[in-house]
């Protein structure tokens, strides 16, 4: 059946009657005609008619009298629309259909989902307000029973509900699981049918139906074909059809843009489920550990790493031995630390070096699924020569100071070391660059840098600082969930961006010499009227009485 009219011919009344009879088949296959429009996929589309209701397989038993309503909101589950029916191509969901439909209906309720999200947010707020991971005595002190916070909140609430380890407590994890099931139920029952509805092409055949759209205009002295060309230029996909009206109406048009914006929310939900799955895998199957290794010493990875959950299984790489060759720091001109580096060598069971790399912060080492991060540093020992004897290694101890600046100190006893009031020389350092020395009375004696090898005389003792030996603070980790989580992250970023697109639909009908245009969009409601006006301004106005196009007058 020839469904694509060449609009330059005047459609005849008789021809349209024949078309009416033929179109009562309610199925038409579109044959792309090279001279009219660009149609990528030959689909079978149901055309609605005033005379008969459409009964195609895609309609699932709906009775449509005038037009197919593409609703913006989720189809209500109560009026018997598509819900829980097994769909053809998606076999994995077949399992889900065995669940009772009532459970599914309850879970995919939108206010429930919103309530769950609020609950998750509220629990997280609580988790930041209450200090996490402290000993029970802390909570006895902070939330005493004699003087409850807000009149009722005592330590009993905190410890029984698990609020001291909120982010791994059953209440939080349970809410997250509930949210995940709601996500799955909602995607299956609501979003997938919505996409099927949106993908359907529909034609509005009456001028009234078009005028009832959110945006509608009438263009006198215009032709639907010109409108179609303008829309195609603006990125819309345009489909023409013949009318199956009893009265002569002329060709009509359906155009849409941004259909990906309807698919994208499904992608968002699936990406979130992927991230949750990856997070669960991380929480139950990874190994973590941290160690502070002085320069020159080594450790075995397996000794340091500890499991975090019941799925954690060690691998062969855990037998690797790590040797710290050198630890050094870079400084700015002002003396602040700019970066710290550790030169590491990894040896396998046979003592063969398998890899060697210099780590720094933001630049970890990856081997055999295990990642080593540079996270901290410490001062291990100070090597000095006393009166040209030595070298002696004095262990440096961390001293408590406000803020996050570090301070280390050591003490060299002078004189009688057995007496209880032993005096000596104190040496303090903030970093590996410079050491400050104090004499036996505690007065400032001088400052030396380790590489200068300059001696300093304090109370008759000659001290030369040979070397400052630092230790590297390393964190080790192996995490099987990371690839899954990264995939989920990438999918979430992409699908969130795509769901910004707005699905715009435009219908037009040629009524004599006037074209009646109507359209709607689901997201960009603020910008749509302006965009439409711009497009309609570009449709050329036909000045002469015959319908052949006059290119010399552009309306608007």
């Amino acid at each position, binding site marked *: 059946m020839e469904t694509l009219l060449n609009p330059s011919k005047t459609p005849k009344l008789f021809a349209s009657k024949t078309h009416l009879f033929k179109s009562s088949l309610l199925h038409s296959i579109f044959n792309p005609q090279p001279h009219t429009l660009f149609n990528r996929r030959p689909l079978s589309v149901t055309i609605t008619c005033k005379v008969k209701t459409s009964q195609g397989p895609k309609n699932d038993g709906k009775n449509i009298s005038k037009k197919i309503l593409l609703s913006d909101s989720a189809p209500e589950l109560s009026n018997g629309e598509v819900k829980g029916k097994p769909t053809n191509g998606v076999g994995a969901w077949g399992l889900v259909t065995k669940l009772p439909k009532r459970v599914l209906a309850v879970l995919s309720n939108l206010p429930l989902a*919103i309530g769950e999200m609020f609950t998750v947010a509220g629990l997280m707020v609580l988790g930041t307000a209450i200090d996490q991971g402290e000993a029970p005595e802390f909570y006895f002190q902070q939330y005493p029973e004699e003087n409850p916070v807000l009149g009722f909140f005592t330590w009993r609430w905190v410890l029984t509900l698990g609020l001291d380890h909120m982010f791994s407590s059953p209440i939080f994890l349970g809410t997250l699981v509930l949210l995940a099931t709601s996500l799955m139920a909602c995607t299956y029952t609501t979003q997938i049918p919505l996409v099927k509805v949106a993908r359907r092409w529909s034609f509005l055949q009456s001028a009234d139906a078009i005028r009832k759209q959110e945006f509608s205009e009438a263009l006198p002295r215009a032709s639907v074909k010109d409108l179609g060309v303008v829309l195609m230029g603006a990125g819309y996909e345009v489909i023409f059809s013949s009318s199956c009206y009893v009265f002569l109406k002329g060709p009509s048009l359906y155009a849409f843009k941004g259909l990906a914006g309807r698919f994208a929310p499904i992608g968002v939900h699936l990406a979130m489920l992927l991230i949750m799955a990856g997070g669960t895998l991380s929480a139950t199957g990874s190994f973590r550990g941290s160690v502070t290794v002085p320069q020159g010493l080594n450790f075995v990875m397996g000794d340091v790493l500890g499991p975090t959950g019941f799925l954690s299984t060690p691998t062969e790489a855990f037998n690797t031995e790590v040797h710290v060759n050198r630890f050094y720091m870079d400084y700015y001109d002002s003396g*602040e630390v*700019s970066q710290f580096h550790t030169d590491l060598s990894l040896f396998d069971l046979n003592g063969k070096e398998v890899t060697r790399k210099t780590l720094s912060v*933001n630049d970890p080492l990856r081997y055999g699924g295990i990642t080593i991060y540079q*996270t901290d540093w410490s001062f291990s020992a100070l090597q000095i020569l006393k009166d040209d004897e030595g070298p002696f290694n004095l262990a440096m101890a961390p001293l408590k100071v406000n803020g996050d600046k570090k301070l280390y100190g050591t003490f060299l006893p002078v004189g009688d070391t057995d007496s209880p009031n032993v005096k000596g020389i104190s040496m303090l350092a903030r970093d590996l660059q410079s050491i400050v020395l104090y004499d036996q009375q505690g007065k400032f004696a001088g400052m030396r840098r380790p590489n200068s090898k300059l001696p300093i005389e304090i109370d008759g003792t000659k001290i030369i600082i040979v070397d400052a030996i630092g230790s590297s603070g390393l*964190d080790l980790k192996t995490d099987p969930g990371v690839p899954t989580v990264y995939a989920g992250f990438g999918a979430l*970023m992409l699908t*969130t*961006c795509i769901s910004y697109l707005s699905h715009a639909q435009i219908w037009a009908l040629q009524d004599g010499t006037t074209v009646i245009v109507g359209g709607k969009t689901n*997201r960009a409601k603020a910008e749509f009227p302006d965009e439409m006006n711009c497009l309609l301004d570009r449709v050329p106005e036909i000045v002469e009485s015959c319908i052949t196009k006059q290119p010399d007058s552009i309306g608007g």
Partner: protein
Amino acid sequence: MIFSTLEHILTHISFSVVSIVITIHFLTLFLLVDEVVGLYDSSEKGMIVTFFCITGLLVTRWIYSGHFPLSDLYESLIFLSWGFSLIHMVYYFKKRKNDLSAITAPSVIFTQGFATSGLLTKMHQSAILAPALQSQWLMMHVSMMVLGYAALLCGSLLSVALLVITFRKAIKIIGKNNNLLNQSFSFGEIQYMNERSNVLLNTYFLSSKNFYRYQLTQQLDRWSYRIISLGFIFLTIGILSGAVWANEAWGSYWNWDPKETWAFITWTVFAIYLHTRTNKNLEGVNSALVASMGFLIIWICYFGVNLLGIGLHSYGSFTLTSN
């Protein structure tokens, strides 16, 4: 030396220009000048000048310090005010009208004013970066987060405006600033009167005032939705890039750090907003309520957590010192 003087000059210029723009708006409100076209143009030019000044300020700081200008609270506040003026410029070039300037101009001035005020003078010098911040991820993560905050703040302010207009009668009874509210919203209505007169032919309305107020709230609603959707995208990208960076630098992509948790809470609240808009019953006032909550939560996330100064994000912390 030249760079810091240039910075000073640019800061002062942008601040003064924005103050002038806001003064012009207030004048048009209270004097209800009919010929607002001339003043419109000058206030538009003022906003463009501000945008270029703040851009220049950021570029100067970048060149001078050698790192992207987002390493502490002062720089991120300047970046936030740049974000607001950017939103204003994009809106202006799309629609050729500065409807949003009632929201963006005061936001620019408040954030800049706070940044340059005496509370944060210690941070005005370009500081050196701590080792953990020396990464390419700094540019992407922090800039996306701050741009997301700017867009979300703008959108939630529009929702707050919607709520104020809708409940104006209730506020009239309680509040004392009747005249201020009356005039600020009749200003908006005059704008719409000029442009929507052709819609009169197609719709019913009870009285002109109700109709224009309905139009105004509908426009506010739609623009708020659009801007918040955009801000949500930026926030998502910011949070996820932060997680990937954390995995590279600290060993784990999510540590339930206070700042991370509050960013997630902000994300959740705006996800709730987007979901309330899918249902026609909950659209309008309910979604505006959620967005207003989001406004408070963003400030807690951005500022409140920094006041605590704990956790892995302590770079942005500051102590309020009075000079």
